[in-house]
């Protein structure tokens, strides 16, 4: 097996939220040797679940398994002198330090570049915070909901072709996953790679300041480009300027359908058994169909409600009309496409069950990402890492915390 593009890279991660964990996971999958430094309580993801049979188990939390695969765990209490000194020694041996605490904590623990460059001038310090290290709101606290809201993603959702029915009553919307945290993790990993490439020329480390708010706003580029050129669209019931580009109820759920081009529309009315509609003036072109969508939508729904999502989608696609049913997670996981591409990553659970998690969104053919180890138990690698990185024999190490297996 190829060792990965980052196989000689040493990373220390220390954080209290999920973005830092995801950032270093994205480096670990590419081969980096990542040491996750946890407090003696353990990373929060260990307590988040979901758990097998819904029974709390800090080694088998689904989110922990996802965020911390390929890492080794060392437990330290940085308020204790011995542990703080071990932490500093690990940093001397590291290329990258990924941090995910508030600015106040970073300052208090002296985990800022100004201090850390005395320990290791080549160290790249990647600090991920809700609002960044500078600016009027840099001391603001936040989690995923705050990031999704502050970065404009909540307000933009639901987005076309779905729509808000009552803009005064229906709030901006977040998905039931920590997407803002993961976006900050991706951007932090990207910034870290850019800094590593630059370090080849300069030989110097740096401090990277990643903001959750900006990580979310950065991917709202479509909406920002609209705001930059025209007033933003408001959230009132709104249709795309060309129809049907729609989200429609069907017998067993919903389908999305894009049939705004003339030839697509003609196919749709044929499928509906109303070919004569292609002659109607009020539905004559994409713009007319958008203007008269209130009249058209119920007519199309009469048709879609007679069939299942799969039936409609199959029929539509055979006529060259892009269409797809809204899948449940189960349908996605069990789909032929996902299975044939071997996207989900399978591993054995505590009682031999087979669990699956999302696999690698980047498929690098020359230096493939790979899973070398499951997420660690808390402090599982205390001895191993200290011996390997610092060359101490295990007797010399002097951790204040309790011993783990």
């Amino acid at each position, binding site marked *: 097996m190829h060792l990965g*593009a*980052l196989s000689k890279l040493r990373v220390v991660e220390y954080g209290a939220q999920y973005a830092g964990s995801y950032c270093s996971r994205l480096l670990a999958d*590419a081969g980096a040797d990542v040491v996750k430094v946890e407090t003696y309580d353990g990373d929060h993801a260990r307590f988040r679940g979901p758990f097998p049979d819904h029974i709390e188990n800090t080694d088998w939390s*689904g989110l922990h*398994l996802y965020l911390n695969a390929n890492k080794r765990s060392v437990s330290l209490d940085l308020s204790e002198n011995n542990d703080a000194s071990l932490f500093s020694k690990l940093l001397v041996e590291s290329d990258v330090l990924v941090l995910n605490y508030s600015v106040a904590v970073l300052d208090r623990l002296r985990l800022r570049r100004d201090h850390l460059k005395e320990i290791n001038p080549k160290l790249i310090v990647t600090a991920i915070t809700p609002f960044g290290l500078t600016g*009027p709101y840099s001391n*603001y606290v936040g989690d995923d*909901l705050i990031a999704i*809201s*502050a*970065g*404009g*993603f*909540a307000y*933009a959702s639901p*987005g*076309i*072709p779905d729509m808000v029915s009552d803009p*005064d009553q229906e709030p901006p*919307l*977040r*998905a*039931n*996953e920590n997407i803002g945290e993961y976006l900050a993790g*991706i*951007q932090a990993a*990207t*910034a870290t*790679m*850019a800094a590593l*490439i630059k370090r080849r020329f*300069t030989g110097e480390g740096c401090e*990277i*300041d990643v903001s959750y708010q900006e990580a979310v*706003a*950065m991917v709202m*580029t*479509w909406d920002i480009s609209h*705001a*930059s050129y025209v007033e*933003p669209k408001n*959230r009132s019931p709104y249709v795309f300027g060309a129809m049907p580009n729609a989200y429609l109820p069907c017998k067993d*759920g919903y389908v999305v359908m*894009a049939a705004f081009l003339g030839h697509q529309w003609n196919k749709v009315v044929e499928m509906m058994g109303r070919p004569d509609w292609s002659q109607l003036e009020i539905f004559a072109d994409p713009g007319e169909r958008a203007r008269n969508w209130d009249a058209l939508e119920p007519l199309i729904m009469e048709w879609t409600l007679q069939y299942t999502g799969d039936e409609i989608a199959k029929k539509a696609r055979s006529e060259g009309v892009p269409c*797809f049913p*809204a*899948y449940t*997670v189960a349908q996605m996981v069990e789909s*032929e*496409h996902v299975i044939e*591409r071997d996207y989900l990553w399978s591993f054995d659970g505590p009682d031999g069950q087979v669990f699956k*998690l*999302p696999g690698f*969104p*980047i*498929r*690098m*053919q*020359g*230096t493939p990402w790979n899973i070398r180890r499951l997420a660690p138990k808390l402090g599982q690698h205390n001895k191993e890492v200290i011996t390997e990185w610092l060359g101490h024999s295990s007797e010399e190490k002097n951790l204040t915390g309790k011993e783990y297996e």
Partner: protein
Amino acid sequence: MNRLPLEGIRVVDFGQIIAIPFAAQILGWLGAEVILVESSQHMTNRALPPFADGVVGVNRSAACNLMHSNKLSLVLNLHDPDGVELARKVISISDVVLENFATGTIDRLGLGYEEARKLKPDIIYLSLGAFGRSGPMKDFVGFHSVINAFSGLAAATGYPEGHPRILGGIFPDPLSGSYSILGILQALYHREVYGEGQYIEVAMTEALTAMMPESVAEYTMNGRDAERVGNRDKEKAPHNIYRCKGDQKWVAISVSLDSQWGSFCVAAGKPEWASDLRFIDAGQRLANQDVLDSLIEGWTLNYEPYKITEILQHVGVPSFPALDSLELLKDRHLIDRGFIAWTDHPETGWRPIDNVAWKIDGKRPVEYPRAPLLGEHNLYVLEELLGFSKSKIQRLVRSETLV
């Protein structure tokens, strides 16, 4: 040392619409020379509204000008054999190729990875598809709502009594573009040491599914499908987006610790809520969210979102307005941090543009030349990069190649 990380790297951008244009733009911001290969015969985001001042024009589209900043425009017709030959020459002097045509298109043009690596043995070549380049659905047309619907993310978005919802922001595009950038940087890092390029594949559906580990784990561990919970969370309460004073103004509030709840009640001037047994700990607050949320909205309705944020953040309670895109451009924090930059353009004037989500040693590590006019850099590419003679260029101009 004031050097951009990707100085000296040349990128060929065959990107369509958003995902790859977005990725290539950021590689450009990081210092790469990005050659956007486009054709007036087949325009994607140059033809998309909105246009500056509502006037349609190939150099006036917001999507184009804010997703191609810092690129060079080379117009050539890939339906013309000479155009393909020219593209091959550009690949042979480049380091990175990016494409997101429909599956199979770039191979039929003779510009796929296997051809590209013959032209440039250490080329890094990234191919992005809606459903990826293999599997039974590889040829499906994947507009963003289809990606939301297939990945299962729509199923985890919305309200318990409602239906799956589609997220905004054409999210699958910039998300898969972001993963693409990371892959390219890792490949460049590897190439620097080992001298080898490689092929990278990204599927938009897989990028979206990577956002939903908890839903996938819950299904594969316990057989339960994703739950739609609106803006709520299984661990935290209050955790929602509340109406405020003003027209469609909203604020997000998230409380995880009991101590934060105590602070919230004092700051909101509702000390009686702190001792209310229905809200006494996280378990109680989760169990009584309906009444909790309606009480909180009764309070937030009296203030503007930024005012609520100021009151709550002052006592360490996570809160922020749910900003729309225009408010993002005006947010004083984002402006102070230099996240909002401005670019000038000969046809559209000064326009605000977003930035990368990070600073390095206190500075934005990017440069912002404007987006190119259609075909603006044909001469530079042909003459200076490829060393074509004037007469050869004249011949190409007269043929159907450079259109």
